[in-house]
């Protein structure tokens, strides 16, 4: 392929951190201990949706070994602000809930104690008075007029520039679908999944004599976490010293800035180092997930296998709050047509709120879901028309120089080459005309041009 031979680039040198890993000497956040360190446990909502009338922490405060109890009023700027840094508004998620709860597991108050066991036992003593409201869980119901609006702005979708969804409009879908030889539909859905890194969320904060905080974090994004934490604490970023860079598995689950702000507040309030480490149950049920998604495809296809029109409606389950989902849906929108040249495309992608643990980033989010639907839909088209599975992809595959529905000209296309290489790998002999295709040539691509 004419790739220039380089020196050390291209060589399988051993991992720099490998010996540390295999001897157990790599220091992860949970391996950080300070003398006099306190432990934090979170009191969380037991219900999916409700109004908080009272939080009685008196028994927990009186429990021997408890050093501090932190509620919403201890949080200087009680909003998770993770999206404001990339210009997405409004803030919708409190750091600690105080007016309402939106999902089972939502943080309400933190117990800081001499040992982890004491903190856990005291947390169980906090009395919550919450008036339960019916939860909204189903995506279609959530966007129907019958659903109660669980968001303050009056409906259950993220508002994109005044619209309830992100739109992609390319060509003229309505006309093209009339001209299609076949209309092929498919519905594809996923339920939320967990990142499940072996290392759970963990944060250790040490107050320094000069008033700064040393924050040991397993975030995937140190500066992002620092800046958000500073906004929540209402302190200049320079008061925070973030140390991390070594993570026991992330997969997108550790970009929510979900442990650092509270652990910092605990350390500031007590003047002592504090560790907050999540149990596996918290990691499973309280940390964010990959979103549940439901996608409906309507494709107009010609007898020769060319897809001339594609319409997609996608509902993505953001759970109770934004986290990174409004961003993810936007990326999803751009990828829902797939890596194929389709002249007429219509996409409506919704970011929908429900009363479940928030979804957020996870390995490929937005794209993973689209790719799943597109490739099953391609197979469905092939089977419906009786066209070979390899051929249907090769004739529709985008070529360099063609225009994608997002109106970006294709460059770096190699879909065709990977299809051919996969066929070769499994010993499948593609017909000569398919073998001859390449990403710089429109031949066989139904005459679409850029």
């Amino acid at each position, binding site marked *: 392929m004419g790739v220039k031979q380089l020196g050390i680039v291209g060589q399988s040198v051993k991992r720099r951190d490998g010996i540390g890993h295999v001897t157990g000497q790599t220091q992860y956040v949970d391996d950080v201990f300070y003398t006099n360190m306190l432990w934090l446990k979170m009191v969380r909502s037991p219900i999916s949706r409700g109004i908080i009338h009272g939080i009685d922490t008196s028994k927990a405060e009186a429990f021997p070994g408890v050093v501090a109890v932190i509620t919403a009023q201890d949080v200087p700027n009680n909003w998770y602000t993770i999206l404001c840094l990339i210009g997405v508004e409004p803030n919708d998620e409190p750091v600690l809930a105080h007016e309402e709860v939106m999902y089972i597991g939502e943080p309400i108050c933190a117990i800081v104690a001499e*040992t982890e*066991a004491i903190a856990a036992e005291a947390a169980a003593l906090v009395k919550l008075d919450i008036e339960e409201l019916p939860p909204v869980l189903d995506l279609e119901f959530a966007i129907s007029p019958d659903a109660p609006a669980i968001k303050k702005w009056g409906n259950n979708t993220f508002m994109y520039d005044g619209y309830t969804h992100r739109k992609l409009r390319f060509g003229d879908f309505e006309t093209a679908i009339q001209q299609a030889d076949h209309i092929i539909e498919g519905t594809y859905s996923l339920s939320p999944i967990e990142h499940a890194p072996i290392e759970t969320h963990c944060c250790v904060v040490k107050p320094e004599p000069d008033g700064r905080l040393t924050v040991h974090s397993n975030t995937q994004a140190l500066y992002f976490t620092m800046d958000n934490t500073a906004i929540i604490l209402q302190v200049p970023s320079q008061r925070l010293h973030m140390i991390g860079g070594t993570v026991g598995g992330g997969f997108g689950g550790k970009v929510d800035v979900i442990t650092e702000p509270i652990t910092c507040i605990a350390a500031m309030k007590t003047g002592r180092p504090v560790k907050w480490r999540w149990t*596996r149950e918290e990691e499973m049920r309280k940390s964010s997930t990959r979103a549940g998604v439901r996608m409906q495809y309507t494709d107009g296809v010609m007898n020769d296998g060319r897809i001339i029109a594609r319409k997609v409606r996608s509902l993505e389950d953001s759970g109770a709050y934004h986290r990174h989902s409004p961003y993810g849906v936007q990326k999803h929108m751009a990828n829902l047509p797939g890596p194929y040249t389709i002249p007429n495309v219509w996409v409506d992608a919704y970011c929908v709120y429900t009363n479940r643990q928030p979804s957020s980033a996870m390995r490929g989010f937005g794209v993973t879901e689209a790719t799943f639907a597109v490739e099953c839909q391609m197979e469905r088209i092939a089977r419906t028309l009786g066209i070979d599975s390899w051929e249907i992809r090769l004739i529709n595959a985008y070529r360099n120089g063609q225009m994608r529905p997002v109106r970006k000209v294709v460059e770096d296309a190699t879909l065709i080459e990977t299809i051919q290489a996969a066929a070769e790998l499994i010993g499948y002999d593609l017909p000569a005309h398919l073998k001859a295709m390449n990403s710089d040539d429109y031949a066989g691509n139904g005459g679409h041009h850029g």
Partner: protein
Amino acid sequence: MNADLFIPRSLDEALGVVQSHGAGLLVMGGGTMMMAHLNEGVFFPKKVMSLARAGLSGVYRNGHTQIGATTNLTDVSQIADYPILAEAAYQIGGPAIRNMGTIGGNLYMPQPAGDLAVPLLVYDAHVELASPSASRTVSLEDFLAEPRSHRGVHELLVAIHLPSPSGHAVYLKQGRREANTPSVVAVGARVVMDGQGRVSNARIALGAAGPTAFRAKNAEAALVGQTLNTKSIAEAAQLATEESNPFTDALATAWYRRRMVGVFVKRALEQLAK
């Protein structure tokens, strides 16, 4: 977290702890269930007794076989003369869990865990229970059927007794992955054949197919006097399905489990027919 931990060195000592501390005493066999709850902060016991050093481990043979309640699953997986008990033990967890979990503790695990009850029912096991005042031996079937409250906090499971095995047995466990996973269903079956190739005695036990493991007695009865053929096997599988009363959990629905009871009883009997 102030708590008292008792590690008695004998059964008598353990019963003494039971007598003195009774209600509120949390008893651990290998700890695989209880410690997980402690780590998660599910409960905060104030009195805990571990039976790990109470001298209740070991396999003894004296006309019948006696397995101490705290015999670990690794040791159980090596009891060659009760092959499906050994196999069921081997299919639990990974090596570390098997080194910790005990046969007695396994019988207290809520479904769908607690696989060992299935082969033990197939082998007509009895359990020996001791309290500070008395001891008793009951069939495992009765033990499992007793409401938990009846067993009382004053009673400790001491040993499992097994008669000499007869016939051939098969154990099949369906899980959502190849190993280290709770059962979707677990099926144990044992048949004793007479001289004419007919079933003279049958045992079919089901796990994860009801509130506790249980024997599918209608299916067992239907096999007696029959050869193991397509029709008798299908009938037994159907009866076992009807006798099951499974539940829905994260692994499978009641609908699916019921269906799998039929499939795996059939497969077990087909294997026995060979």
